[in-house]
């Protein structure tokens, strides 16, 4: 029987319509808008000013703390300004805006396509290199990778888990890189294993990607320590905690990190970025983005420079469909609806999904019929109906004791609710308020 996580979960229609489209390189934009906060943690500090000339791969904003990272120019040209610009969150955030002139790369970057297998760096040097090159988790959460690799004192990782699950419907960017960049991902995995000093790496891939499973199984045979595990298709298997449970049957304790059970999870895209950073000296300046949706003329997977406006991807796929209702940064379960098409692609953009008008609106909210489906599908064992009611009544202490902060915001509850209740909206509100109260209590 195929492995999966045992508790909760849903299986929305997969709709992987761009799965067959090979990665294409998108032409350079005329202007690149590079936000200085593309990762979880402290925003980076700009190191360039208006009028500066920059090359591809040059640092334009520096890490400002442990949980922060560097940001590099993805284009060559002149810094137009450093100004507020709407990003995928819908808020205005500071960004470096660069007019593109030519395509001149930093000379330290190795742009040759050859696979470079051998590496001699020590663990700490690898971590340094990862930070220098601004690598963050590419699965969507954009947690700085060097932080994850720096195992806290007293803890020890014994297994690296590579996340090739891609459980979000529609998205196929991870699927494509697994097919087209498999060798690089394997080397990246070995580098990560070295950095963590672990002997074992498990790659989890859902069973709806048999071609990727085949490619990686062949490679794993040649590379001792690396195993491939096909998984039953079930959302949210790509969640760290669910994936760890599915693969090695360990439960990350409430409020804890995967390292507490000796595991570190990295996305396959991150492994590729680590390979490029360590072996090719290439900072994270471009990534693969799926452009997909039922009405999109040409669903595709593009290799895009960070800072390219979303509108240019849509244009390359035949323009915005007439029946467009929503444009989403990410997948339908956890992605964010965009309020502008000028929003730039950032390190965390795994896909742009265009949803037709008919499916874009929420259905009217009805009374809760207490069917308990939300409780059954919650992968964290929470009671979404209760958290919603408690939040509505502002009973914050009960919201906290009912473990609202354990919620991973996967949306399974709201997805499954027959009465179309906005469960996750309220749980988010409850989580934010409880977090504030806890912070206030600690002061």
């Amino acid at each position, binding site marked *: 029987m195929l492995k999966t996580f045992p*508790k909760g979960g849903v299986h*929305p*229609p997969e709709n992987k319509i761009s799965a067959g489209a090979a990665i294409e390189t998108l032409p350079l934009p005329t202007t690149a808008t590079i936000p200085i906060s593309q990762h979880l943690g402290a925003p980076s500090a700009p190191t360039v000013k208006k009028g500066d000339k920059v090359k591809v791969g040059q640092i334009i904003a520096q890490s400002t703390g442990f949980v922060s990272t560097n940001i590099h120019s993805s284009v060559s040209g002149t810094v137009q300004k450093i100004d507020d610009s709407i990003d995928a969150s*819908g808020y205005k955030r500071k960004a470096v805006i660069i007019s593109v002139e030519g395509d001149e790369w930093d000379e330290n970057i190795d742009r040759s396509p050859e696979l470079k297998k051998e590496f001699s760096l020590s663990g700490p040097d690898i971590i340094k290199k990862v930070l220098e090159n601004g690598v963050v988790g590419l699965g969507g959460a954009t947690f700085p990778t060097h932080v994850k690799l720096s195992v806290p004192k007293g803890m020890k990782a014994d297994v690296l888990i590579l996340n090739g699950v891609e459980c979000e419907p529609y998205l196929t960017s991870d699927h494509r890189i697994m097919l087209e960049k498999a060798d690089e991902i394997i080397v990246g995995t070995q580098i990560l294993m070295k950095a963590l000093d672990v002997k074992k790496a498990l790659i989890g891939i859902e069973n709806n990607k048999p071609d990727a499973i085949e490619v990686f199984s062949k490679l794993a045979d040649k590379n001792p320590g690396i195993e491939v595990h096909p998984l039953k298709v079930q959302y949210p298997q790509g969640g760290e*905690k669910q994936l760890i449970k599915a693969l090695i049957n360990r*439960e*990350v*304790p*409430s*409020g804890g990190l995967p390292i507490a059970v000796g595991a570190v999870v990295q996305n396959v895209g991150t492994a590729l970025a680590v390979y490029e950073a360590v072996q090719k000296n290439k900072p994270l300046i471009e990534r693969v983005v799926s452009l997909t949706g039922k009405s999109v003329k040409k669903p595709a997977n593009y290799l895009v420079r960070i800072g390219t406006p979303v509108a240019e991807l*849509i*244009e390359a796929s035949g*323009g*915005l469909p007439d029946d*467009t*209702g*929503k*444009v*989403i940064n990410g997948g*339908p*379960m*956890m*992605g*964010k*609806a*965009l*309020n502008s*098409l000028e929003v730039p692609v950032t390190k965390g953009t795994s896909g742009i*999904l265009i*949803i037709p*008008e008919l499916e874009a*609106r*929420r259905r009217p909210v*009805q*009374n809760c*019929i*207490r*069917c*308990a489906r939300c*409780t*059954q599908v919650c992968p*964290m*064992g*929470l*009671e979404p*109906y209760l958290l919603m009611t408690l939040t509505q009544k502002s009973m914050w202490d009960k919201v906290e004791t*009912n473990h609202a902060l*354990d919620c991973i*915001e996967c*949306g399974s509850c*709201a*997805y*499954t*609710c*027959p*009465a*179309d209740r906005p469960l*996750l*909206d309220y749980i*988010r509100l409850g989580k934010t308020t409880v977090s504030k109260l806890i912070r206030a209590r600690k002061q």
Partner: protein
Amino acid sequence: MNKLLTISPSPHNYGDDSTKKVMYGVVIAMIPAMLVSFFYFGIGAVVLTLTAVVSALVFEYLIQKFILKKKEVSITDGSALVTGILLAFNLPSNLPIHLIIIGAFVAIAVGKMSFGGLGQNPFNPALVGRVFLLISFPVQMTSWPKPGALTAYLDAETGATPLAIVKEALKNGESFSSITEKIPGYADLMMGNMGGSLGEISAIALLIGFAYMLFRKIITWHIPVSVLGTIAIFSGILWLVNPETNADPLFHLLTGGAMLGAIFMATDMVTSPMSIKGQVIFGVGIGVLTIVIRVFGAYPEGVSFAILIMNAFVPLINAYVKPKRFGEVVK
């Protein structure tokens, strides 16, 4: 490319389940038992079912429209339809029309709308209606037409239910083995060839409905199995202790409202616990109370009281029985 975009938080896609689908799924699951009741009780069953359903819908409509003054009346969501059918399932087929209407009024107005409508009621509305009638009109509510009189309604020939026959006989000191000729055989009990409320007679038809609801994932197996399992175990223990003064477990399972209650009444989502563990506790409680009332109580049948009593415990169960949290830190 300037187009007004819809903005909302995730998730952006929804499952295709809806309250309507759930409710009409339950209705479909009740059809076999309904057909069996038409087959055994004829015209009376048809009149009863129609009256109960129509009056439940009408009361729901009137209350929503004129008392609650709702802009959109939601009688098409199927919940009043389910209540109407369930109420009919719990009544004898010779009940006069005005009593059916009173029962439907109590079920909808008192049992459901007075608490705030769909999803808000603590007690199963159909059972509230039934128990109100049982206590207020005990004579009419306990005269059971014999199966097979297809054209009779108010004038149907009546008799006691198997449960009442056994209760009476055991009270008079007769032994269980000596009264087996007075009650229908197990094959008849399975098919539904016995006196009783409309929907409760045929175990087979109810089990088909159960299988359908499991298949459609409308309910899980936990409540019905824990109710019926407890009834079997508890009555089995009593029977093993003294088979002369106690009926056997199969008899308890196949007679009265055990099957109907376990499959369609106790599983009412609104009035049952949210967690699986809670549902099992709830089911066990119903099973125990049912046998306690049947064996030691004054009434021959106790399923509806058992369910209503356990309904009252649901908030308590929900408050104390929590699902197993992922990564729970054991202190």
